[in-house]
């Protein structure tokens, strides 16, 4: 089982390495950035069962924070990344505390409502955010640790930094879902009442999941702010929230690899088709409808189906990896 996990991880790294040569580095960077945000949503939606329609709140807040720090203080890269992650987490803790008091559609609409309010603040507070024009003139600081300093000026180099950040985030996320938290989150998703009855303070864990997701989303927002030297207003708009939701759904929920596949498919599709035909959303819509009607596990399921056909049938593995079991079995086998 460990071997399978390792092979998967190597394949992931390989995919990340090849990506900027399959699509343009700029698009590849954006795929990785949104994959981090989608991964975060996957934690609260796929693993914990809370569909947030307001992730742009944390994405945008962190992007603005990072932009302002770099413009006004020329803050170094890693400090900005840390600050944005923190801002995302703190904002998610504050907003999440209110949102998790409600469930279902009310929860969704609360996250959406807060998103709209912060969008409005960003829109009106032009002195700080630049409003509708966006926050321009953001430098891209070099990656500097001690005496080492690497310029990230070219698209490819920046992709390198984004890709490493993504892999670190992926590893962190994997550790979270492999930890007891992962089991608890999934238990809450499956049956919140029962999770409480066995002794979990459901709201506290939901809050925790929401906060963690906010921090990851914040990190993604920081990376986004450095992409084009501008934080556009739509980085905090519900359009981004919606995109993140659809990336997770397309990729397949509750699976670690789903968000990356979803982000890649979503961005790649919209980029590739938009160059060919200006009415590209039509094709995107048709693809979505077909996926939903005929391929519901998302791309992860498509993958396993193809693999099964290639491998000559055999039982299809559960799309939902039982994360802790293999490890548990192993640890028992060890002395």
């Amino acid at each position: 089982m460990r071997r399978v996990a390792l092979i998967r991880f190597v394949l992931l790294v390989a995919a990340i390495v090849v990506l900027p040569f399959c699509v343009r580095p700029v698009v590849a960077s954006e795929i990785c950035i949104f994959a981090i945000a989608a991964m975060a949503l996957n934690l609260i939606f796929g693993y914990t069962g809370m569909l947030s329609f307001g992730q742009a709140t944390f994405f945008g807040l962190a992007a603005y924070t990072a932009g302002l720090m770099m413009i006004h203080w020329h803050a170094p890269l890693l400090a900005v990344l840390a600050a944005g992650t923190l801002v995302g987490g703190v904002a998610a803790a504050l907003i999440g505390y209110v949102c998790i008091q409600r469930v279902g559609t009310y929860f969704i609409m609360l996250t959406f409502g807060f998103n709209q309010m912060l969008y409005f603040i960003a829109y009106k507070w032009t002195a700080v955010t630049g409003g509708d024009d966006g926050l321009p003139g953001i430098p891209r600081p070099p990656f500097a640790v001690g005496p080492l300093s690497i310029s990230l000026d070219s698209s490819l180099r920046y992709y390198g930094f984004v890709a490493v950040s993504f892999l670190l985030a992926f590893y962190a996320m994997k550790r979270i879902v492999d930890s007891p938290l992962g089991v608890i989150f999934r238990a809450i998703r499956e049956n919140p009442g029962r999770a409480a009855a066995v002794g979990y303070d459901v709201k506290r864990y939901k809050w925790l999941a929401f906060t963690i997701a906010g921090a990851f989303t914040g990190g993604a927002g920081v990376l986004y702010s450095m992409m084009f030297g501008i934080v556009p207003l739509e980085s905090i708009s519900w359009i981004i929230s919606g995109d993140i939701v659809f990336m997770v759904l397309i990729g397949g929920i509750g699976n670690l690899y789903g968000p990356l596949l979803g982000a890649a498919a979503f961005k790649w599709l919209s980029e590739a088709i938009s160059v060919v035909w200006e009415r590209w959303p039509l094709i995107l819509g048709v693809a979505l409808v077909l996926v939903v009607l005929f391929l519901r596990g998302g791309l992860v399921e498509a993958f396993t189906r193809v693999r099964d056909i290639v491998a000559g049938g055999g039982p299809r593995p559960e799309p939902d990896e039982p994360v802790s079991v293999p490890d548990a079995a192993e640890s028992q086998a060890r002395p």
Partner: protein
Amino acid sequence: MSADTILRTDGLTCDFGALRAVNHVSLDVKGGTLHSVIGPNGSGKTTLFNLICGEVRPSAGRVYFEGREVTGRAPHDLPHLGLARCFQRTNVFPKLSVYENVWAAVFARRTPGVLGCVRRAGEFSDVDADARRVLADVGLAARSEARAETLSHGQQRALEVAVALASSPRLLLLDEPTQGLAPEATVQMTKLVQSLVGRYTILLIEHKMRIVMSISDRISVMAFGEVIAEGTPDEVRDNRDVQRAYLGARR
């Protein structure tokens, strides 16, 4: 309150609007016994459980567990105090594996804090050992890797019990463990419950009179939200009120 009382309810009352679902129920469950609550459908048994476990707030009355008042405590506090329950409708984590269902319940009793969660789930060998012991106890060891939703109904009921046992409670509340089971599975479940007697204090809701009479130490009979009789199986069997209320209502 006598020294070995583990659970006591004191005039527990619950109103849903104009309807009084539970009316001044006072129970006294002794440690190490199996205490059953019987009564016709709608007599307020499950509501009584929900009141004890904090799922529903009582309109009046109090609940004491091991001498400590627990009235209105949040449901998630009770397992930490030593009180666990099973539900009438199978209520497990369907998409988690059988093992994970039990693992989650065992782990809940430990409070490792956020830092403890940085470790991998598989690294908690004591939790793992407890979980496997409980699974063996209820006879599900062989199915531990299966998803809970793929189990047969009887196995799901057993898992339901296992999840409750996993938190090593001092008081176990079982809400109709044999409900909806085929005769074969009912026998299995009865055996399982019997095997728990003595090891755990059990408060049991059950419909099947034969089972109740054969395994209970004490029985409380409820009708229209009130306890109308209480005693040993023999005493209850001979009670006229019980016969009238119970059999009358069943007809």
